[in-house]
């Protein structure tokens, strides 16, 4: 297999290198890629969409249809992970382990036994060896709000600086993942329930596709945000800018929820226990 793999890889590489012979030079400003379509995007974007970040404009307006499916891809990735891994009817082990947070002592509760309800002093653990580090927990707790704030900023400021819905969404998702890693998955899931993930994820995509469909209902083509002008009471170009913002928010919501969803399923193999 190794030999075959090597041969295939080398052959493919040879073919690809053969193809590069007729390429324009690297970073050549006169290459077709730089002269055919991109000048239009660079020169007209401000006029047509009033978004300075050309990437955002192209992403969410000129090629917004691509981006809608990009969001759908991640959404379907989430659904696939869920459908593959999630185990609903799992038999609970007879003995359950709890840790007394203040002392660090581990308690084994026999079947039928209960710990005091509404007590924050105990946390459920799954194995005797479950690390517990106060410093990490505290620092992460402190850090997470700022990460989230940054995530929101990235989404909202996508028009003017690098970033946008996708990056912001990942950052927001990462903040919850950080929580899940530093505490444990149960804590994170308490903050953001599985159902919330599962609902937000399609909702985000729905915001995106729904905006496009709204344009369609307003009489223009799908994803033609200038149709929103009549709803938002602005001129068509600004409407495009606003439309981009709306879909970026949709992307952000979808990506955040989906990333968390995937992480939850992967890290607990679908059992939603303590996670990593």
């Amino acid at each position: 297999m190794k030999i075959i793999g090597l041969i295939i890889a080398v052959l493919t590489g040879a073919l690809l290198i053969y193809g590069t012979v007729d390429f324009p030079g690297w970073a050549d400003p006169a290459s077709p890629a730089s002269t055919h379509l991109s000048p239009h995007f660079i020169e007209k974007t401000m006029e047509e969409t009033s978004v300075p970040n050309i990437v955002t404009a192209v992403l969410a307006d000129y090629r917004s249809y691509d981006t809608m499916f990009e969001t759908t891809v991640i959404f379907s990735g989430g659904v696939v992970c869920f459908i593959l891994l999630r185990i609903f009817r799992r038999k609970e082990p007879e003995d359950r382990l709890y840790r007394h947070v203040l002392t660090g002592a581990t308690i084994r509760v026999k079947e039928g036994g209960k710990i005091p309800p509404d007590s924050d002093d105990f946390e459920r653990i799954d194995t005797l060896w479950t690390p517990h580090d106060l410093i990490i927990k505290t620092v992460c707790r402190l850090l997470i709000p700022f990460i989230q704030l940054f995530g929101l900023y990235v989404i909202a400021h996508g028009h003017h600086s690098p970033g946008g819905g996708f990056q912001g969404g990942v950052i927001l998702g990462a903040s919850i993942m950080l929580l899940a890693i530093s505490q444990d998955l149960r804590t994170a899931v308490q903050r953001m329930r599985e159902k919330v993930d599962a609902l937000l994820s399609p909702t985000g995509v729905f915001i995106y596709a729904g905006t496009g469909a709204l344009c369609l209902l307003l009489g223009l083509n799908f994803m033609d945000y200038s149709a929103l002008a009549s709803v938002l009471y602005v001129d068509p170009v600004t409407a495009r800018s606003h439309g981009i913002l709306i879909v970026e928010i949709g992307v952000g919501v979808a990506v955040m929820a989906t990333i968390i969803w995937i992480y939850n399923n992967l890290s607990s193999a679908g059992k939603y226990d303590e996670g990593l």
Partner: protein
Amino acid sequence: MSEQYPALLVVVPLLSALVICVAGWVNKRLCFPIAVAALGVAAYSCIGLLLRVLDEGVIVYKLGGWDPPMGIAYYVDHLNGLVLSVVSVVALLNLIASKKSIDQEFPDKIGPFYTLYVLMVTGLLGIVVTGDAFNLYVLLEIAALTGYGLLAMGEDRAPLAALNYLYMGTIGACFYLLGVGYLYIVTGSLNMVDIAKILPSLYQSKAVLGAFIILMVGVWLKMAFFPLHAWLPNAYTYAPSAASSLIAPLVTKVMIYVMIRFILTVFTPEFAFNILAVSDSIVWLAVIAIVMGAILALAERNLKKMLTYIVIAEVGYMVGGAWLGNRAGMTGAILHIVNDALMTLCVFLVAGNIVYKLKGYAFDDLKGLYRKMPFTMTAFTVGVLSMIGVPPTCGFFSKWYLILGAIRAEHWFFMGALLFSSLVNAVLFFRIIEIAFFEPFTDHHAHGHDHQPEPIDEAPLSMVVPLWIVAAALVIVGIYTSDIVTKIIQFAIPEGIL
């Protein structure tokens, strides 16, 4: 609303998939009606679109209102229109037919399953309708990802098979992406029509050649063209029946469509058939694909796995037909996309019904099925006849054009391979029919004559009725071949191909 059909056929299923996902958490019983409604609307739009194309010619739909090549545009011509209709109708019929088996196989994951199902159809429809090379990649990935999910839901070996499919599928998609990248670097465009306009001056470019090869290899990987087929049999065999009867008829066919689209629209027949001079070797590959598919199918003792090898052989038919480089062969390939989608659907639905009732599909499980499930097996017979190529079922007519193409191209081995595969299909299926028809069902042997007939234990009506519709369609499409060819396919093939 008819001018919005191109958007509707993708957007409605997409939005519904999202709604289904939400509905799955609220009330599981809502999922199925929403899915049916969505695919119904999609099918309606597709057929409406086809009718419009027949009237008006090529329809261009600008997404976001941006002119191509700036924005993404749909180009809907006769070829798309036909394939779109087939895809949407097949998906709809299969959805209705599969409801019971979905309920049976995944009682607690109905919502996500329908979500993936509808998303997959969205992806396939999107692939067919789009006119943008990169957009096609994204949709390819949607169809692929959801496909991995659906296929992996099956019995115990399914995840492994799906994982192998994922590796191969990803390599295929990456190759496609690389090919598009090579084209982009020399043309600066992603729009298929625009690329086609720029390409003629670059026909001698090595980059274009590299792009072409890598792109074709990618597409072949995805369609399981021999010898790149290794992922397919296991992936389809162990899949849940609802998934395999969606994916087996459609995915390979849609990839064939992509190949034909790239030959006809992007690279133009002039480049593909005349400048490159590789068609002959590709037809040879197709010959090997057909023969190997047939031989491998012969070795199987498991209904579903055998069907998957037949799928591989059928891929060879279409690739070979398309690369014969003449009108008859191309007509045959396009016609076979339609026919093969229907007949594969038919036989896989039968397999689904059998699994639903018997929980198994090894040959030994099939004994006495004609008495037990007469309606299912009648439809199976029709599907089989079509696969063998017995007139007046549609399988005969696409084979007719393929063989005619082979004769006109004087490629006798391709003709021989087609005939060989027909013969092998006959052997394969009559082996099954013999078991199912003439062997007694239970272990109580037929002592002498005049034993009591087995009680009929047919699959539920909701599975049988769509199956019968498909079986009837096999004959009806066969009889209307002439109309399909003269009114649709003839216009789908550029004038240049004789």
